[in-house]
């Protein structure tokens, strides 16, 4: 066992410890501490990614003296390493980029509580990525839910309280269904470890024993995680939660929390139930249909928004639809596209939320497009980042969003004929709809008006500038150098079984 393998549990435990210590620190100190910890976790995750790519197969880390079916176990392949790196990059940049927003929106004496939530959120995301045990996944889903709720309501006003309540109700419904699913699965297989469940499920599927409970379990788990990641008919909590919380929280919620659940669902697809059984139970078709509806409806609703935050939030619903559409294709290529889109969307959405904050700062604090006009000239970097993000979401070449759309199209061509037509046509319509509202937003940001808001004493925050530049580079990186990443995802999926 090499030394690097220790980094997998160490990064989780480091985040948990940081959360505990943050509760004893003063506000600003806890932020500095958190940022240091997140950077360390990023470096550790990079090592894990490099090691797993070099190794070519996954390794297992036994948590404690007793091996797997008796004790707990973590597992890291190159896909897990990639996701860990991605999550820690976005988390770090979102926290750094929103520092001024945090100072304005969060009460001084609650600042350390905010960073407890950030640290534990990171721990739970890493645990969801690395876990090899379904019950451990549930425990960390719980932590994730509570931390997400707190991230919304840390900004103390009526809107966020209502949003947090809505989020909590929907999210707990999802957790409950997931728990029922896990316990039913345990009853019919007698295992909690992912590969062991997989073995038992394949056996059950062949013999036809417990066929009805197995179908119900698959349905419950998919629906539970779809609710938690805001797939179309379950999206009602999303606009308010993203629209009123502080900028860092919105960025984290949109690009990490929902993505963590989707990644867990992908793990369940491949490592717990098995892709063949999933496709055999037709659950992929259902996810495909709702993904398609979400792609259209999210964009249609986004067109009607006049508030920039709500626009970005509704666009998230459409993008989640893309991811589920890719998963619903039921092929490996579709899954690669979906995972690539998780990264592309995460990188872009968090950038949009942070840039939006920079634009709002120079528009008298208003989020309305009539006030935002001309804000691109008042805060140049935020305007640029907003434009890059918007173009990426529309799918302009060289940017992350374009590449993921290409992968979706490639995956759709190899799919079943009906699915191919539906997916291609919806991709085209959705791209046009995206263009309608994002290009309009960019144009209004760069319409030279509202010059009375120009304040010569305004200085853009350097932290935000740093984060935005990193985001822009990351976006171009995903767009141009997509091949090695897609390759890593593909090998990662291969070693998943």
């Amino acid at each position, binding site marked *: 066992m090499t030394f690097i393998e220790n980094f997998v549990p160490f990064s989780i435990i480091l985040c948990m410890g940081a959360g505990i210590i943050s509760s004893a620190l003063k506000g600003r100190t806890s932020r500095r501490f958190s940022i240091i910890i997140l950077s360390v976790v990023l470096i550790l995750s990079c090592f894990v990614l490099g090691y797993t790519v070099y190794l070519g197969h996954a390794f297992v880390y036994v*948590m404690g003296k007793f091996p797997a079916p*008796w004790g707990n176990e973590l597992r890291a392949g190159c896909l897990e390493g990639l996701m860990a790196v991605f999550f820690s990059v976005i988390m770090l940049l979102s926290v750094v980029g929103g520092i001024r927003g945090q100072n304005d929106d969060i009460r001084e004496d609650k600042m350390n509580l905010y960073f407890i939530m950030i640290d534990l959120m990171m721990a739970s995301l890493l645990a969801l990525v690395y876990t090899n045990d379904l019950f451990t996944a549930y425990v960390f889903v719980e932590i994730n839910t509570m931390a997400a709720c707190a991230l919304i309501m840390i900004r103390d*006003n009526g809107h966020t309280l209502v949003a947090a309540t809505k989020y909590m109700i929907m999210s707990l419904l999802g957790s409950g269904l997931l728990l029922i699913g896990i316990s039913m699965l345990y*009853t019919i297989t007698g295992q909690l470890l992912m590969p062991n469940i997989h073995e038992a499920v394949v056996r059950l599927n062949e013999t036809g024993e417990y066929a009805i409970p197995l179908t119900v379990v698959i349905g419950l788990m998919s629906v539970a995680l779809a609710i938690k990641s805001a797939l179309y008919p379950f999206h009602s909590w999303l606009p308010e939660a993203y629209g009123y919380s502080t900028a860092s929280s919105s960025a984290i919620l949109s690009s990490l929390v929902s993505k963590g659940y989707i990644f867990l669902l992908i793990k369940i697809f491949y490592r717990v139930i098995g892709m063949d059984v999933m496709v055999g139970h037709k659950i992929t078709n259902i996810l495909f249909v709702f993904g398609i509806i979400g792609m259209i409806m999210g964009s249609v609703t986004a067109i009607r928004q006049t508030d920039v935050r709500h626009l970005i939030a509704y666009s998230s619903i459409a993008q989640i639809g893309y991811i589920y559409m890719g998963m619903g294709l039921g092929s490996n290529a579709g899954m690669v596209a979906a995972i690539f889109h998780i990264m592309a969307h995460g990188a872009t959405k968090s950038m949009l939320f942070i840039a939006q904050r920079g634009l709002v700062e120079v528009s008298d*604090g208003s989020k309305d497009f009539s006030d935002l006009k001309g804000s691109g000239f008042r805060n140049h970097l935020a305007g640029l980042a907003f434009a890059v993000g918007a173009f990426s979401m529309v799918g302009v070449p060289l940017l992350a969003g374009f590449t993921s759309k290409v992968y979706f199209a490639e995956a759709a061509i190899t799919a079943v004929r009906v699915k191919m037509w539906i997916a291609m046509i919806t991709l085209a319509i959705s791209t046009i709809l995206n263009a309608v509202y994002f290009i309009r937003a960019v144009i209004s940001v760069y319409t030279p008006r509202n010059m009375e808001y120009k304040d010569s004493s305004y200085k853009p925050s350097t932290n935000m500038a740093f984060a935005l530049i990193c985001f822009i580079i990351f976006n171009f990186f995903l767009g141009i150098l997509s091949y090695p990443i897609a390759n890593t995802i593909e090998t990662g999926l291969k070693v998943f079984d």
Partner: protein
Amino acid sequence: MSKKRRDYKLTFYSRIEDFVNGKEEFLLYRPTGTTEAKKLETLEEELTEAADLLEKREARQKVQDNTEPLDFLKRFHRLYGIIAVLVCATMMGMLMITVSWLPKFGEPGNPANNEVIARYIEKGQEETGAVNVVTGLILNYRGFDTMGETHVLFIAASCVMILLLIAEGEEKKSSYAFDRYLEPKNDIIIQKVAAFLVPVVFVFGIYVILNGHLSPGGGFSGGAILGAGLIMYVSAFGFKKTQRFMNEHVYKIAKVSALCFYVCCLSYYFYMGAHGYDNHIPLGTPGNIISSGLILFINIFVGTEVACTMYAFYALFRKGGL
């Protein structure tokens, strides 16, 4: 700070904010100082003005709206209720039918009765040193899950703090002063009973924690008992007396050190276990009070954390601070 809409004070959201922050019951506390009284008066005037505005607005709305959309809304709400009940009933029915297809509870041939359970029961005592198999299972075999579960409690307490912690200042003073407003102060019956019961509850809680590896119980249940004892003490004798031994400072130190030690112990255990080294933790003779290695200490840490969390919930809900 983002510019709030001018009529934010009139919205539903503002009322919710006021309610959560306790401003609706502002009238309990009427400062007699001139500036504060004036401030209050102006605030009340503003509020009444706001209420007037709201009324006028509603009246105008009523004139503008026809009655038809309202009827439609009412019908929609009724329909919504019926559909919700139907969906829930279908869901329940579906789950019930599924349960009837699951293996029968308690049969020896069930899939869950496999080699995993067998090892827990047969070798649990030998491998973990704990007579209570359940404690051995959750704190040793599956220690990582339980660490997550403890953090769930920690994060729950922090969430309640985010929601209910009152800022330093006038509001905090008033909230602290009136935390016994609706309760009898120094009630002799409660105090006598508490004086008799609290030590018993504490001793019982400590017993449950320390015997976690020998008999049913452990950190979670024992901590809850300790927390209940603390709450009983507070409700009998008030916060002033309690704060001599349980204030924010003590709370922080106890919680942080318990969790830190917990995480450190488990990290050591994970590291040694994963590499196949001997971890040099003596298991002792099963049945003795000092046995079962780390489990005893972990129970103590978990118990401290749970007791602190229980007390913090009570104090936060009662007066918005520790």
